[in-house]
């Protein structure tokens, strides 16, 4: 049984490796993207320069990058907190959309005279509730019937999308703007429900998103409930043994995940969009959130810079068209980053080395065998 390499589970991955894998993934993806660009006759240096310039080169550009990053922080947190507990909520997309539907509903229903603080809070919270409700459609069957949530959350994405389109494009619901005669549009929410901008198009929603990421980190690492969450995420049996009600915990996490994604929807509605606009809400923000979470290795704080990076890519896409390069370059890069990052997980959780020539294969004890 001579093998060229031995693969074995690793205990504690060194910190530099955990940093190197995401950065390496980005670099590897850029090289792969560069190959694509060169094959199709583009100047890859020019393209990457243009992207950097569009995303970070000016105040306005950077503001747009942060505008793009805001919902990604939230959908990233949504994916991360669920995945860490092995709840495969890939319905961030649908939860975001349904959050936007509920938020816009509240925003339209509110009277013009509602005080600004109350209106904003009402609209934003409504989105979180909407997202949690949409998640519950998959969470409740999972916890009480054992229904696999991967497929249900995935399908709920498309149901939410079609439902939103129906509200604006397919019916004359209250969400549809009666004044838009040319092409159907969402009805604007009350002016007092809008989150104010402070730097170009950037609004305070960014800080809500960052706040949510920080709260998620704080709850997980500093509170009793977060400790229970970590135990359940590690081992259901150990959690049961330690007296934790596992189904309740899983349900709670699933709903919190949905609420975070729903918040992304309400912040878009109350922020830059001002209405439920089906086209602007169907950008794959939920799926991109999964890339963000995977690249951040499910760490809520790391999600913030990663989301800014992804936001920068999204923001840079349209600028590429001005130099005749398809904006799909961005999608290639994002997909490739995720592929490399997910493959890199293997290197973080396993150690690969050549067989020890003397001890042969017998040395399989974990490294910390001290007693």
């Amino acid at each position, binding site marked *: 049984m001579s093998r060229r390499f031995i693969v074995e589970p690793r*205990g*504690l991955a060194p910190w530099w490796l955990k940093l190197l894998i995401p950065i390496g993934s980005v670099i590897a993806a850029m090289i792969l993207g560069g190959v694509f660009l060169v094959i199709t006759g583009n100047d890859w240096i020019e393209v990457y320069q243009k992207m950097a310039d569009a995303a970070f080169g000016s105040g306005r550009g950077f503001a747009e990058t942060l505008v793009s990053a805001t919902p990604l922080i939230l959908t990233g947190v949504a994916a991360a907190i669920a995945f860490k507990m092995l709840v495969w909520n890939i319905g961030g997309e649908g939860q975001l959309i349904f959050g936007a539907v509920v938020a816009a509903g509240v925003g339209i229903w509110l009277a013009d005279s509602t005080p600004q603080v109350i209106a904003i809070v009402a609209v934003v919270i409504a989105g979180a509730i909407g997202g949690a409700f949409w998640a519950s459609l998959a969470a409740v069957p999972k916890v009480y019937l054992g229904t696999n949530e991967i497929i249900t959350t995935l399908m709920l994405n498309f149901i939410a999308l079609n439902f939103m389109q129906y509200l604006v494009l397919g019916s004359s619901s209250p969400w549809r703007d009666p004044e838009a005669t040319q092409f159907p549009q969402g009805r604007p929410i009350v002016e007092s429900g809008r989150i104010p901008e402070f730097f170009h198009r950037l609004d305070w929603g960014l800080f809500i998103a960052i706040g949510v990421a920080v709260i998620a980190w704080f709850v997980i690492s*500093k*509170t*009793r*409930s*977060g*400790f229970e969450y*970590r*135990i359940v995420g*590690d*081992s259901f*049996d*150990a*959690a*049961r*043994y*330690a*007296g*934790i*009600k596992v189904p309740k915990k899983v349900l709670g996490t699933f709903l919190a995940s949905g609420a975070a994604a729903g918040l992304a929807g309400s912040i878009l509605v109350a922020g830059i969009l001002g209405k439920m606009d089906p086209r602007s809400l169907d950008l794959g923000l939920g799926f991109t959130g999964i890339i963000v979470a995977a690249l951040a290795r499910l760490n809520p704080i790391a999600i913030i810079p990663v989301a800014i990076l992804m936001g920068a890519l999204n923001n840079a896409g349209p600028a590429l068209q001005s130099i005749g390069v398809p904006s799909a370059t961005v999608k290639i890069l994002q997909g490739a980053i995720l592929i490399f990052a997910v493959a890199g997980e293997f290197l973080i959780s396993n150690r690969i080395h050549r067989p020890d020539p003397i001890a042969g294969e*017998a040395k*399989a*004890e*974990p*490294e*910390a*065998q*001290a*007693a």
Partner: protein
Amino acid sequence: MPNADQSRTPPAVELRKIDKSFYGVLANADVDFNLARGEVHTLLGENGAGKSTLCSVMAGLYRPDSGEMLMDGEPIVLKSPKHALAAGIGMVYQHFRLVSNLTVAENLALGNPEVGLRLSQSELEAEARELGERYDFPVDPTARIWQLSVGQQQRVEILKLLYRDVRILILDEPTAVLTPQEGQALFRAMRTLADEGRSLIFVSHKLHEVKQVSDRVTVLREGRVVGNVDTADAEPRDLARMMVGKDLVLPTRAPNESIGEPVLVVDNLTVTDDRGLDAVDDLSITVNAGEVVGIAGVSGNGQRELAQGIVGLMKVTGGSVHLSGKDITGTSPLKSIKAGIAYVPQSRLGMGLAPGLDTEDNLALKQFREPPYSNGPMLSPKAFKAKGAELIEEFDVRGVRPGLPIRLLSGGNLQKALIAREVTQDHCVLIARSPTRGLDVGATAVVRDQILAERDRGVAVLLISEDLDELLALSDRLLVIYEGKIVGEMPASDATAERLGLLMSGHTEEQSA
């Protein structure tokens, strides 16, 4: 009679000086073994005596470190279970290797090179039916495995081997999962197979079965062969003594004089397992303060269900559990922790510890809800560190690094950490299952000392173990569990290996007297 042939024809299988160790732990040492054609040969031994390893060597799953194997007098080196099957040796493992959502016929065909590319369900089914009828093993070939009882599934495993026409069948504790009636049917089939000239290896702990079904017995202890007798000449008490060993460590300490009031009182407890069987069957135990009550028994006789039923991890279907007079029947794990039941489960990483969390976190796994670990909804990282360091120091847990997942510690250190947590919480009862299983000498001593210290502190200790040395060294009173019932009780000072061995093998006191 098969024995008559032995002098003329070489044995079907012969093992010479087989050694096999795992990571330095010897599982088989210097084992000589021979299996005659047409005989049923029992391998007898306690848990961990090396029976399964020896069977796996013969089935091609493990390669021996040294020694040789002969079939019909010719040396053979088995490369894999597939190779062994081709050579005519097949094994029925304790955990069946059946695909539960496929039919009986499909499982027979799976991986079988003799089945053609085209799969004719009807032909397969006809063959399976015919095979089943020949050995009086009626199984519906169209049934899916999950629809069958455990006994029927075992028949499928055996049919799978017969379908491949193996000459040597190894059955690893086949009766452990069977009802007595199913067991009798199995024995009849085993006889039929032997009469056809096939050879069978039968692994068991149950002496009456050995007597009933086998021609010869080889007894293993601590990886070595300690006896080989014709069954006709063997007395159950001789076998029991051989199996358990004569050199039992007798308790060196004086029995505890200060036994107090009853603390844990279990009355007529019944716990139903996942298969719907009463794994714990109308069982009663009382454990007093300052007393260690040992429960001896071969694994799988209801030990897990007894412990989990008491602490609320499994549903109790009958009877009651009282703790210091308070009814806690059907409690929840959290309530049982709060009521003061400390529990050391058999599976350390599977249940007692969260494998991916670090040692400090694991030391707080149960008490994190109370000060100093938490303060209202907030955790106190300082307390985690301070209490962690204190326990790590006091219980000599080595190899700990902050952030290092606890699963990377050695078995002894895992157990020390687990015990440290359990005995330092507020408790009046300690339930421990096989607490020294797999530990080295040093760690074993630490764990045993802790259990005796618990007793001296007035805790009621329920020690459930398969290790007689451990039970005799620690217990004040010994009970024997067999098929979910207590079948014998004695002060530890009256226990003999022979008496325990008989009781654990299902011989009641009256039978053995």
